[in-house]
């Protein structure tokens, strides 16, 4: 029997019982819709979350430290570092795997990092302790240098109020919302455009003596910085060993570096004034795409630095999503399992109805294999048709839920997005799965039909 004839005959049989075929197909469609919808939800959530992670500026960032950094060594090079360490370079750790020669993290190193492929920018991590004063309120906090290249990080792209730095040379600052609320009793928004006084202890010549018996070469320096924007929280991991969240104010990187050059943070510094070239404790490298983070990290390590990123954490999150996907598809499969029983039921009914017809077909030369194939093709047709309808149904329901969810999220002031994602692999996979399940459901009825005794079947009414 020619394959085309088998398909033709199977479709003719399905058309004979239009209502039953339609109902069974709808059952499969609902099963596939629930399965595809669930997986689609898992994929959509993953895309949303990973997308937000990537957007957060956490995953395209590599923290680079000298191998000699006691912090880097203490944490096996896996912790972000930022504490000031201006002491002489300690020899590389002995023992363990041979590593590239340690390099100091100076301006030359930053240029080298910046020149790496896929690297967007490399900037030293500079965090200085400062006192900020607005009106009569004073707070001790940390000021962090932010390179202009960070303008596209989501926190800076859409600050809570105001805007990002216009250039690197202005005496401008961004406030963290928390600090801004402490500085004013009014609306933090009104701080925008006002000056903030930043003071710090400095070895620089200009400035006023501190008093309190401190050596006279330490001066108190005050400068006014215009508040240009307020952000919700400090983005990225670049906050130093203290971690993000502790710095309350952000300055353009060159401003922060200028302060950093003279700021006094410890007595040690006064006893051993550093005459050597400026060495940084940590450099933040931003890569162009989060996908290349791991790659760039490895190359930085090969250059002789310690490097750390949290792209590993992203991988783990993705693994967690695989589990979520499996769980969601199991839930979705329940409906499909029910509908596959529907197929079995329909096919068995169909055999009962067509017993005589099967007998005739066998009597005039149809083989067992022919009969089995006709029924398997019928089951397949239900599966493929149900699969296509189901994917369309799942998509439509997903759009509706998505619309409703986004409407709610928007009303709550959240960021909207696609909760359901239906990539091509899911569409084709769902239809293929529907076909396979239907085929499996058709095996028993088809075998039963093929095994019918022709004489008994011909006597059947």
């Amino acid at each position, binding site marked *: 029997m*020619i394959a*085309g004839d088998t398909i033709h005959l199977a479709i003719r049989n399905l058309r004979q019982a239009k209502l039953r075929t339609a109902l069974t197909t709808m059952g499969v469609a609902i099963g596939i819709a629930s399965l595809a919808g669930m997986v689609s939800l898992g994929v959509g959530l993953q895309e949303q979350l990973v997308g937000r992670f990537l957007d957060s500026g956490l995953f395209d960032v590599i923290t680079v430290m000298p191998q000699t950094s006691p912090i880097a060594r203490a944490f096996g090079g896996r912790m972000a570092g930022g504490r000031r360490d201006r002491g002489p370079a300690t020899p590389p750790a002995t023992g363990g795997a041979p590593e590239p020669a340690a390099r100091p993290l100076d301006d030359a190193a930053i240029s080298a990092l910046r020149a790496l492929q896929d690297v967007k920018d490399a900037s030293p991590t500079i965090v200085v302790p400062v006192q900020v004063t607005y009106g009569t309120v004073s707070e001790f906090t940390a000021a962090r240098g932010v390179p202009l290249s960070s303008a596209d990080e989501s926190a800076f792209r859409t600050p809570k109020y105001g805007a990002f730095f216009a250039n690197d040379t202005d005496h401008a600052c961004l406030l963290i919302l928390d600090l801004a609320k402490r500085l004013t009793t009014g609306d933090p928004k009104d701080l925008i455009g006002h000056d903030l006084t930043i003071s710090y202890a400095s070895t620089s010549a200009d400035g006023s003596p501190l008093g309190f018996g401190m050596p006279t070469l330490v001066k108190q320096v005050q400068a006014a910085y215009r508040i240009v924007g307020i952000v919700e929280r400090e983005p990225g991991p670049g906050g130093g060993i203290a971690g993000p969240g502790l710095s309350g104010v952000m300055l353009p990187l060159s401003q922060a570096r200028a302060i950093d050059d003279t700021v006094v943070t410890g007595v040690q510094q006064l006893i051993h004034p550093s005459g050597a070239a400026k060495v940084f404790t940590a450099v933040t490298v931003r890569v162009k795409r989060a996908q290349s983070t791991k790659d760039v990290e490895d190359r930085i390590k090969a250059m002789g630095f310690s490097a750390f990123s949290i792209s590993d954490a992203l991988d783990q999150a993705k693994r967690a999503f695989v589990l979520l996907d499996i769980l969601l598809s199991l839930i979705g499969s329940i409906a499909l399992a029910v509908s596959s029983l529907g197929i079995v039921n329909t096919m068995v009914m169909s055999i009962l109805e067509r017993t*005589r017809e099967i007998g005739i*077909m066998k*009597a005039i*030369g149809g*083989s*067992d*294999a022919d009969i089995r194939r006709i029924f398997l093709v019928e089951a397949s047709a239900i599966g493929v048709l149900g699969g296509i309808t189901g994917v369309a149904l799942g998509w439509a329901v997903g759009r509706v839920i998505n619309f409703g969810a986004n409407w709610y999220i928007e009303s709550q002031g959240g960021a909207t997005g696609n909760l359901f994602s239906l990539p091509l692999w899911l569409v084709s996979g769902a239809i293929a799965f529907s076909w396979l399940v239907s085929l499996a459901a058709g095996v028993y009825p088809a075998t039963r039909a093929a095994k019918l005794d022709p004489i008994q079947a*011909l006597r059947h009414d």
Partner: protein
Amino acid sequence: MSVPDHILEARSLARHYRMGETTVKALDGVSMTVAAGEFLALIGTSGSGKSTLLNLMAGLDRPTGGSLMAFGQNLAELSSPDMSLYRRQRVGIIFQSFNLISTMTAADNVALSMMFAGVPRADRDTRAQQLLDVVGLGPRSTHRPKELSGGEQQRVAIARALANAPSLLLADEPTGNLDSRTSRDIMARLKAINEQDGKTIVMVTHDAALAAQYAHRTLTMLDGAIVSETLS
């Protein structure tokens, strides 16, 4: 007389059914032959085993004892796929109740057996039309069985039985559901097929007069055995 060319030969053929504790001997030690080109009638009361014998000849059933040689192969030993091949190539079957597929047109019913034989659609449609023309139903080829009279349906069934050009035609009470006038028409057609096309025909009937009128030879069966043979 020359050695008859037997296309069928049954030796001690038995078909026993187990019905609970008892064994029903539908066919019990039948030995007979069918010669090529012969028109043979099997008569007997219901339950005499004539239909059982026909079903065995048709390859629809398997013997439980003895042997049934058909075209040089023992039907008792054929595998299931070979059995369907035998049904498809060697025999055409005509039933009392026509057994047409009600949802198919006359032409599609005729073409169906060719479909199982793997004949391409265009070829089988052409041949189906030719066969319907031969039985006088050419203009009615697109009609479904319920739009046809009993005689017409049986003519469609005859056309279908001839579709794969078998050399043996098996008819189980072909006129059992027909009035006498239509019966004569069907019998005349079968006789023509036997005489003009040279097809061997084995017909089961309970009508001894009909058998005597059309068949060359009549075997009378009783309780699963052949009790007499009549030449006409």
